[in-house]
């Protein structure tokens, strides 16, 4: 067994495998399949201060090697999360993080303040990259001043680790990464979904109720890898790699590109055991190549 321990700011991870927000529910949906505590941590569904019904059906379109979604941050709101969902998460011994979103800076702050009171939550992932909401979301993540402003404001009220989830729908992701690092982000995670679209040629209508949606799955992996590689050279804070990771080889590629940890997303829809299989596969890779520690491959791309 190789040593898989790693760290994201103050969060100690027993291994670098996390689950991406919006693809793992609140963790409890996976209890039938495996012991979620085996993972380094879970990042639960995007949470906003007010309850959100999300977008109208249809919200999903299957695409070549991937899918589009337009869920639109459906959730019961932060007070409901604190009162009704949080108690169910106390049983987990691994790290539980909450993905925090909002339409205005004030909403992000109010949501983070509520999560800040929850002792068992190790940190937040600030979502400035959701492409499926009319206001806020990605709008904050595509300009440096607005990204810095929301990170700055949340930093003042949130005391534990703050990861900032970045959008790939930008001209230069390294500029945004540097802006949020400067504003106090403890880590960046990337990438969120790529803005895309699907059309039904037979009906001559868009497939999604929102016309556009967020593309995920193996089709986005090359874009995600490139961005993780660029950002890991642009910032000093740890980078968490996300984007089309379906197996351990994919995960290893992200470590080589510079990621300190990874998140498994869409793969969990197809195989609820994907994150566990990826964790085991990472250990197998390290053993096969005689590496003792996950750090031995992080950022070790040979040029």
């Amino acid at each position, binding site marked *: 067994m190789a040593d898989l321990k790693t760290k994201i700011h103050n969060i100690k991870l027993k291994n670098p495998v996390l689950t991406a927000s919006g693809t793992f529910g609140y963790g409890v949906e996976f209890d039938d399949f495996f012991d979620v505590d085996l993972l380094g941590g879970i990042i639960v569904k995007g949470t906003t201060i007010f309850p959100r019904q999300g977008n109208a059906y249809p919200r999903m379109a299957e695409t070549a090697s*991937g899918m589009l979604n337009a869920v639109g941050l459906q959730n019961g709101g932060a007070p409901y999360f604190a009162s009704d969902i949080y108690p169910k998460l106390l049983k987990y011994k691994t790290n539980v993080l909450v993905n925090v979103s909002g339409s205005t800076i004030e909403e992000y702050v109010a949501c983070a303040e509520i999560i800040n009171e929850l002792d068992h939550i190790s940190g937040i992932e600030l979502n400035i990259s959701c492409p499926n909401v009319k206001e806020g979301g990605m709008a904050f993540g595509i300009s440096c001043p607005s990204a810095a402003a929301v990170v700055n404001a949340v930093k003042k009220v949130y005391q534990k680790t703050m990861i900032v989830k970045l959008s790939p729908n930008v001209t230069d992701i390294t500029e945004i990464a540097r802006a949020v690092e400067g504003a106090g982000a403890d880590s960046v995670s990337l990438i969120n979904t790529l803005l895309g679209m699907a059309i039904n040629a037979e009906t001559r209508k868009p497939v999604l109720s929102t016309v556009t949606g967020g593309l995920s799955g193996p089709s986005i992996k090359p874009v995600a890898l490139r961005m993780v590689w660029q950002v890991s050279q642009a910032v000093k804070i740890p980078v968490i790699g996300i984007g089309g990771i379906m197996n351990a080889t994919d995960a290893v590629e992200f470590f080589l590109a510079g990621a300190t940890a990874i998140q498994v997303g869409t793969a969990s829809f197809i195989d609820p055991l994907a994150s566990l299989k990826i964790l085991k596969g990472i250990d197998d890779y390290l053993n096969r190549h005689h590496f003792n520690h996950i750090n031995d491959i992080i950022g070790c791309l040979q040029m």
Partner: protein
Amino acid sequence: MRKSVQDLKVVSNLRLNDDQHILHLQASNQLEYIHPGQFANILVDQSKNVFLRRPFSFYSVDYQNNIVSFLIKGIGEGTRTLLNAGVDSVLDVLFPLGNGFTLPEPEEKVLLVGGGSGVAPLLHLAQVLSKNSNKIHMLVGARSVSDLVEMDNYKRYANLHTTTEDGSHGEKGFVTDHSIFSEGMTEFSRIYTCGPDPMMKAVAAKARVKSVFCEVSLENSMACGFGVCLCCVVQTIHGHKCVCTEGPVFNINQLKWQI
């Protein structure tokens, strides 16, 4: 039963017509109880353009031989790939998913209304109800007699009625044109329906007028099948609910259908 991912062996692939087959799949372990109306999500890994699993209601369950059956209609690349599943090949199946139909009290007289491949969960339901000594009437609608397949299967458990749009079998017209709705509909204490949305809405409208209990089985597109992608939602009186976990079976009074 706990949800799990299992390798099931194809023990037979029965061709009904050009685009409909029944797959019989065998589990290596004892099957636990599967409720009528629950479904499975099957991986289609031999098809390069198919990324997600494909959901199918259980068509029948044989606990003695640990065999589950699915009625597969070839609609797209994923379902057509499954039509070609070879005997002895293995399919990766996630099941059982969702909640099923609410079972009636023994002796109640019930009506099952199916259209197209929507008849699949109704056979499983009829199997269970026949053991519950219910009086079962089943109404199946199709375009033409050639689309009415495996009718003997239904006759084993139910009094069978049919409609065809071209009049080639049973009464002519849509299922809701059938005389059972004008004659003795209030004799039924419950109606269960599965099929195309317009058909289910028409059946639901008939049930609502006569205040008969009615459950429908929905088939929204989904990515996961166990309540984490939140893609398959339907508008209910309590807001958006996932068809995969809160359904696929809903009482019509829960849905915000314009009927």
